[in-house]
């Protein structure tokens, strides 16, 4: 296996563009233009149904399970996946798929059967709103503020990732890619809200699967079949078909994968991530909401075919690439025929767009309702739709302005993951204790979220691996919630009906 070099953002931008460039034929360009027209058309058609804030943020609670399920996957597969997962698989093998398996499935099942019914029955628009009703308004504002800041950064990163992909495939300057993407996503996100986002996500995920399956089919054919593929892979890379790597592995130690990713980061993301869960709150029934997450979990099981397999294929085919992250463009260039190259290109762009539009909509919701409604209690609620649309536009424009500078920071994906580990542990602790222990108090929640984030910052500054930071701060926050709750006053039992699981089961 060639030496895997860490790739800075600037290197990525230049190397990916130079060596990974894919020659698109006329048929590819026709498919790409057709896709863009289709996405905008679907989004604008749906936007005609939007007449209120509930239409905009929750699609009038009308979405069915399979649309929501596909949208969840579309939201989940983001910039880091398509751009980095194939590269990760090239370096460490199938262990990369832990992010889709142990690092997702258990948490998705818990979300489906325990947390989504709780949120759905509580009738909330957002997870911070649930925390606000469970604890108090300041917990709601702090949770919404932290999630919004992260999400705004995520918007800029997604725009940047799309722009460098467009630069690589089409040779467009980064600023042109940002402008075109911002315009396309903005057209349907600002006008159509969550319904437009969910339907376009579903379409985008379908395209992603078609593209991914085409790569697998043609790639295995090129490699001489599945058995020949496996033999060739492990001949020089004996650990590349092992899902767990040793505990002293530098980037994928198995204790970190199970304790940090599987037990903390993943449940925090799937049971408490606003962008993910917002579409389940828009379901037409509680069962549809739960079934959507279960359907997404089945789809998630097969996601490695889309984002991990190309990295392994590049290794088997002895791709002449200098950096692991160039493995996917190399595969697209060398395996797919004209037409399918365009489709795969669309799949990558679709993955990035579906994360971008979801971040836009959920951030707009949290600022409009969870921050504005609390800090400005006399604000006119009838203006929510207008404010939501303007906020979506403002966040998008901010992201477009900020995106070109993302590459200058270097290691932005690592920065995003690090930011996540700052608050995921405390947030998950608040959700778990709030949902299952009625004795957990608002004062304990406030202390836990503030001190937990501060502890995470200190641990990261001390150089602890991100996955362990998430685990330790989760354990600390649970202990903090329990101990402080013993000396402070809980909310009256009658205020916790439909908010604490123990009470719901005894309905």
């Amino acid at each position, binding site marked *: 296996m060639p030496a895997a070099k860490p790739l800075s953002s600037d290197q990525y931008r230049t190397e990916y563009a130079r060596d990974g460039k894919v020659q698109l034929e006329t048929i590819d360009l026709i498919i790409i233009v057709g896709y863009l027209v289709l996405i905008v058309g679907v989004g604008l058609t749906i936007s005609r149904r939007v007449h209120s804030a509930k239409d905009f943020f929750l699609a009038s609670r009308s979405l069915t399970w399979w649309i929501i399920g596909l949208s969840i996957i579309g939201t989940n597969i983001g910039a880091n996946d398509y751009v980095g997962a194939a590269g990760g698989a090239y370096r460490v093998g199938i262990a990369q798929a832990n992010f889709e398996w142990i690092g997702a499935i258990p948490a998705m*099942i*818990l979300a489906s059967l325990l947390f989504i019914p709780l949120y759905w029955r509580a009738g909330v628009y957002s997870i911070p709103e649930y925390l606000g009703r469970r604890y108090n308004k300041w917990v709601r504002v702090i949770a919404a503020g932290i999630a919004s800041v992260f999400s705004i950064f995520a918007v800029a990163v997604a725009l940047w990732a799309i722009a460098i992909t467009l630069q690589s495939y089409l040779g467009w300057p980064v600023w042109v890619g940002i402008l075109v993407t911002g315009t396309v996503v903005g057209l349907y996100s600002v006008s159509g809200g969550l319904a437009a986002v969910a339907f376009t996500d579903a379409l985008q995920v379908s395209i992603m699967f078609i593209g991914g399956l085409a790569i697998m089919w043609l790639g295995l054919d090129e490699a001489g079949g599945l058995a020949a593929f496996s033999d060739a892979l492990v001949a020089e890379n004996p650990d590349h078909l092992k899902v767990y790597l040793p505990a002293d592995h530098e980037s994928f130690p198995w204790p970190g*994968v199970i304790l940090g990713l599987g037990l903390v980061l993943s449940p925090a993301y799937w049971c408490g991530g606003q962008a993910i869960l917002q579409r389940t709150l828009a379901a037409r*029934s509680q069962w549809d909401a*739960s079934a959507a997450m279960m359907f997404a979990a089945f789809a998630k099981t097969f996601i490695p075919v889309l984002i991990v397999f190309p990295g392994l294929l590049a290794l088997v085919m002895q791709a002449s690439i200098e950096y692991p992250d160039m493995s996917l463009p190399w595969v697209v260039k060398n395996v797919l025929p004209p037409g399918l190259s365009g489709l795969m290109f669309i799949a990558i762009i679709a993955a990035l767009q579906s994360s971008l539009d979801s971040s836009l909509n959920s951030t707009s919701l949290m600022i409009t309702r969870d921050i504005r409604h609390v800090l400005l209690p006399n604000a006119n609620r009838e203006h929510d739709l207008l404010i939501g649309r303007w906020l979506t536009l403002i966040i998008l424009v901010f992201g477009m302005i900020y995106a070109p500078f993302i590459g200058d920071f270097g290691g932005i994906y690592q920065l995003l993951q690090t930011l996540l580990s700052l608050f995921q542990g405390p947030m998950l602790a608040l959700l778990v204790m709030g949902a299952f222990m009625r004795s957990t108090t608002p004062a304990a929640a406030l202390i836990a979220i503030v001190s937990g984030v501060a502890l995470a910052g200190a641990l990261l500054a001390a150089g602890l691996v991100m996955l362990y930071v998430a685990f330790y701060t989760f354990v600390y926050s649970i202990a903090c919630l329990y101990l402080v709750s013993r000396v402070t006053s809980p909310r009256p039992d009658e205020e916790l009906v439909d908010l604490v699981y123990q009470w719901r089961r005894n309905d």
Partner: protein
Amino acid sequence: MTDWPLWWASAATVLIFLVLLGVIWSLKRDKILEGAVDQHSWRDLRIWATLLILIQLLIYYLFS
């Protein structure tokens, strides 16, 4: 943690999924089907969750 043997990972994975199975089947059927348009067995999400867990166990068995 750096000296923890690799087989613990497989054991922990099996344990996580078994605990999850226990949690799933402790939930009441009527709560799972709340809001469903009918009460057909295929709408019982506990069954689908169990199938999903079996697939995961198979995957981890094959690649461990």
